[in-house]
């Protein structure tokens, strides 16, 4: 058991340290085999839809230089299963839980968010940036008006839970999208999701992913995530930001905190090393010991810049 002294606050929700898992790379039954989930700042669960989704055909994953391209397509057993199984299990284990919400249509998101009203979820993360579904996801997150309308509707549906909107990096100006989400009532922003990518098998000449394209993540996208967090922090000095993209050790986590994030999430790196989120949380504790000014800001719910 580790004692964490360097906490953070994200949109009013206290985290015992700034490290969380990223959606789609953490599953309660899998990840809890490797570390104590109560020792993380938070865990973000897989995108959950109103009914079970079967996802995309396989293969769904392809390696790329210092990264991975995935096209899982949000396969998940649906909100009712989530409320009966994963969420109570994680809360019983002492985790702070961010529930990631997926949908094809605005109505899908509303249904899920309604069911999460008065649930023990600590925060909601609205996935408006998944490149792996034909409808919903990225098509919402790239259009400020659609996004504004969606977040406004979700806010009406569920006033209790803090929500964060997971914005895509592949837009002309991420600050416009970020403003649309916060103007509509998003309490925080999760930046960034994966970028569209693909790989081709040179023996067959065909794409490796059955879905042709997928979302690129892992260390390869670190500089892109950082630049987006920096830009949005500059445009929105007071909005809580969770920095995501390519974090693979405590130093890269620290880069996001210096870019202005309140906290961070670890995605692909947890797939390559199941204990990585926990190890990074422990190592970050030491790095923050050495940086009392940054640690004090985070603990007060403020950010470095």
């Amino acid at each position, binding site marked *: 058991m580790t004692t964490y002294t360097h906490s953070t606050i994200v949109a009013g929700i206290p985290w015992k340290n700034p490290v969380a898992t990223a959606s789609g790379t953490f599953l309660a*039954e899998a990840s809890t085999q490797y*570390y104590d989930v109560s020792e993380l700042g938070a865990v973000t669960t897989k995108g959950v839809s109103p009914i079970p989704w079967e*996802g995309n055909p396989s293969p769904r994953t392809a*390696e790329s*230089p210092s990264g991975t391209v995935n096209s899982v397509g949000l*396969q998940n057993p649906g909100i009712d299963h989530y409320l009966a199984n994963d969420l109570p299990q994680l809360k019983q284990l002492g985790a702070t839980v961010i529930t990631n919400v997926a949908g094809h249509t605005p109505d899908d998101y509303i249904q899920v968010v309604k069911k999460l009203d008065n649930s023990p979820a600590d925060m909601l993360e609205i996935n408006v940036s998944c490149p792996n579904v034909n409808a919903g996801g990225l098509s919402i997150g790239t259009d400020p008006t659609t996004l504004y309308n969606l977040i406004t509707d979700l806010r009406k549906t569920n006033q209790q839970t803090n929500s964060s909107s997971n914005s895509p990096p592949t837009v002309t100006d991420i600050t416009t999208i970020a403003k649309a989400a916060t103007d509509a009532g998003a309490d925080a922003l999760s930046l960034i999701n994966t970028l569209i990518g693909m790989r081709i098998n040179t023996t067959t000449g065909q794409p490796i992913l059955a879905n042709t394209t997928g979302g690129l993540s892992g260390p390869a996208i670190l500089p892109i995530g950082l630049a987006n967090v920096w830009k949005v922090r500059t445009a929105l000095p007071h909005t809580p930001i969770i920095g995501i993209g390519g974090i693979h050790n405590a130093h890269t986590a620290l880069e996001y905190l210096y870019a202005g994030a309140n906290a961070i999430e670890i995605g692909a790196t947890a797939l390559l090393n199941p204990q990585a989120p926990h190890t990074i949380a422990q190592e970050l504790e030491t790095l923050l010991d050495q940086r009392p000014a940054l640690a004090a800001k985070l603990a007060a719910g403020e950010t470095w810049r």
Partner: protein
Amino acid sequence: MPREWTTATRNPHATPARQPGRRTVPVIRVQALADTIIELTLQDAHTARTARPGQFVMLYTHDQSRLMPRPFGVAGTNGDTFTIIFAIVGEGTRQFSTLREGDTIDMLGPLGGQAFNLDQPGDYLLVGGGLGIPPLLYAAQRLAAKPDTRTTAILGYRDTRYADTRMQTHTPHTHSITNAQGDVLTLLNTLEPNPNPDQPLTILTCGPKPMMQAVHQWAQTHNANCQTCMEQRMGCGYGACVACTIPTIHGNTKTCTEGPVFPSTTIIW
């Protein structure tokens, strides 16, 4: 003064059993079994003691641009060491082929929620093709220790019969065929693998999907229980990413934690 956080006291029954994480293990031996087929012996007491046939380990390159895990079926155990047998097919396996005794490699595992079930007494027929043979070697090793079973192995190779001598140490009833001669179905149909019709027949198969489908159909017509070890590209190997699915009668199913061994009747061929 920053607020202190400690871990909350929790219901111990809700706490899952912890598994060893990614770790660095010593390379004990590297042996070429054919031109591009290598047997790697690694020292890891946990895997050697707990791996069940059909389970696999993840190996990782030392190359920071190639981060993804590479899955390989456990091919045998001995004391606190275990072996895998792999073909050089891409850059990761090429790097693994250059390992030497005394080097180290990162691994995770053993992984795989469902292994071959060897509880049934009686006749076992192991049908393997290509690089599907290694998990069957381990199944044969375990079956050899069970006096109430009799194992016949039918192995199909592209060319070099790289695993015959290893299989023969576990069962004298080893038959093999190369692509130039035909396929494992040719052998299946010429053999009498179930000499005691009153004994239950269990088939374990691993190899290319069309081969396993043909073996499944053969099992259906011979009233045999058939377990297939499936392959899919994996993102993590421990159940977190949902990348490794195959279509089954239960929907898209993860091969890493729901498999890799499935009853052949549940696969949508």
